[in-house]
């Protein structure tokens, strides 16, 4: 096989990519902010200095929360993709592809459209918590369902899992279609936002929520890295090595559902990050989850930041939906991977 990078080189490279993407994304946008102004704004942010220039206000209120949300979303999706792929022992298990994202989106859609009718007082008083917890529940149910459906005697069946994903995606599509018929005009607009994915709704309150959830999820995921390495050898082998396989599975499912649910609840469906980030990392670093998990988080964050920077600038002052861009990178990747794995499907 090809030469592999050392774990340190992969993690360092990932961190460097993320830093570059952050600087590039911070410097680009519809509102013109020169590098000198950007430095001044950063200085003011870090020292707590007083700055009331328009550049500062735009950066601190609009662009910066968006960048942080991009990092949280990318890291969450990259890690969740790695977890799913480790759990299913299958490199095609992307949270979007197997329906977790659309399950979360459908649950969020139900909350937006029907929640107002049945529990009018709840969403307002609790902020975005009901939405996030419903999205989590949707993602969780779908993950359980897919896992149950794809199990057979010899472990997880790749084809079954992808077919179940197609069915779930179709079901979620039909559900969202129904919701778009009964929704009011205003609700319809929120629904459309969900299907295309966007970081445009970033405000500090939402960013803090997603950031906290993703951070906890990432920390929990890291504790699963060792057991997932054992599971890669086969579930019975892992059990022989003293790994409580069922417990690891449960935790991986909960962590994935939490991370994907929180991200999807805030940004809508951002596809393919969970597929391509771990794939690229594994190409460079090999399959060790202790490296792949954090490096996929870093690379996922860098990818989302870069894609969002393009989404924000390419048709400025208007915007492209983020999901369109991630799909444009992700679909060719997915097809290449299918070609590579076709002998095994």
């Amino acid at each position, binding site marked *: 096989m090809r030469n592999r990078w050392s774990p340190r080189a992969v993690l360092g490279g990932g961190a460097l990519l993320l830093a570059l993407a952050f600087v590039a994304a911070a410097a680009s946008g519809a*509102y013109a902010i020169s590098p000198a102004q950007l430095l001044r704004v950063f200085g003011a942010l870090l020292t707590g200095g007083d700055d*009331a220039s328009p550049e500062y206000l735009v950066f601190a*209120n609009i662009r910066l929360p968006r960048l942080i949300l991009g990092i949280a979303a990318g890291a969450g999706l990259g890690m969740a993709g790695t977890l799913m792929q480790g759990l299913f022992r299958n490199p095609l298990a992307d949270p979007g592809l197997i329906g977790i994202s659309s399950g979360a989106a459908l649950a969020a859609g139900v909350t937006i459209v029907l929640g107002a009718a049945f529990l009018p007082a709840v969403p307002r008083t609790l*902020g975005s918590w009901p939405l996030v917890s419903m999205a989590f529940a949707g993602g969780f149910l779908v993950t359980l369902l897919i896992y149950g459906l794809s199990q057979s005697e010899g472990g997880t069946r790749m084809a079954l899992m992808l077919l179940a994903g197609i069915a779930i995606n179709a079901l979620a599509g039909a559900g969202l279609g129904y919701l778009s018929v009964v929704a009011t005009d205003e609700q319809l*607009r929120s629904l459309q936002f969900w299907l295309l994915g966007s970081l445009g709704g970033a405000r500090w309150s939402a960013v803090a929520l997603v*950031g906290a959830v993703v951070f906890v999820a990432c920390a929990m995921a890291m504790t699963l890295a060792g057991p997932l390495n054992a599971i890669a050898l086969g579930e019975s082998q892992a059990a022989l090595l003293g790994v409580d396989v069922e417990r690891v599975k449960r935790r991986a499912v909960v962590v994935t559902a939490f991370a994907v649910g929180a991200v999807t609840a805030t940004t809508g469906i951002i596809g393919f990050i969970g597929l391509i980030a771990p794939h690229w990392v594994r190409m460079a670093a090999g399959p060790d989850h202790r490296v792949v998990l954090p490096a996929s988080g870093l690379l996922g964050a860098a990818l989302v930041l870069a894609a969002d920077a393009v989404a*924000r600038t390419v048709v400025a002052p208007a*915007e492209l939906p983020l999901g369109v861009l991630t799909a444009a990178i992700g679909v060719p990747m997915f097809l290449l991977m299918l070609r590579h794995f076709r002998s095994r499907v």
Partner: protein
Amino acid sequence: MDAKHEPALDCARLPRRRALGLLAASAGALAWPAAQAQAGKAPRLVTVSGAITEVAYLLGAESQLVGTDTTSLYPAAARSTPKVGYMRQLSAEGLLSLKPDAVIATTEAGPPVVLDLVRSAGVKVELVEADHTWDEVQRKVQAVGRAAGREAQARELQARLDADWAAARKQVAAAGGRKPRVLFVLSHSASPQVSGGRTAANAVIGFAGGVNALSGFDGYRPMTAEAMASAAPDIILTSGQSIEAHGGVEKFWARPELALTPAYRKRALVTLDALLLLGFGPRMPQAVRETHEKFVALLA
């Protein structure tokens, strides 16, 4: 305002925690210094709605327009202004990059988060309620006049439009006779939609002396053959864009849903530009007059 509703969280992970505190402290005092300092200069405007853009041109505020949305297609000059995207998918930074003093839109614009962000950056956001009445047109003129600093011109335009509107209404009322049952079909995309109550089309049909052939539901519904047959419209009203999307009048009439309607037998079709017909802009009296005259001609 969301920040107040949401529970306090452990934000320790956020790299810019300090920025949060700073922002919270200064949130009330956010202002757009550039905008307010230069009181002498004419305010820069972004108009988000075809009708509002038309008003800006009529008030002579075109030099103040720094951006419009994708529904702003008339007059032709509006097409070459910077476009801020579709009115329901605006971008906060995109809007602010045009450094406007005011954004004028209808209540249909969004998403709300983006409008909030723009507002909190000190830009005036004027939302005109879209309720499909003549008042709506007047409110659009007032809103643009106020934001552009052209209130005198706005009052003049309002008076002129009022007279024009009164004349159009009088013409419709004088016609008398039987009120045609009219079905509005919108098919800019693949599946045609028909309009029920509380739609712009419903209001225009009424103003032009017709009756909406569909009742019993609000908003738009997909067109189905049986429902169209039972609605029994005398006239089909549609937008020029819908005919174009079908590839011509012949193809439009070939739609199976229309075959069992009285309108089909006489090929009774009225076509107007979508923005003129449904925009509730300053050309509203013209739209009503044209629609009415075409109704009368078809019934004769």
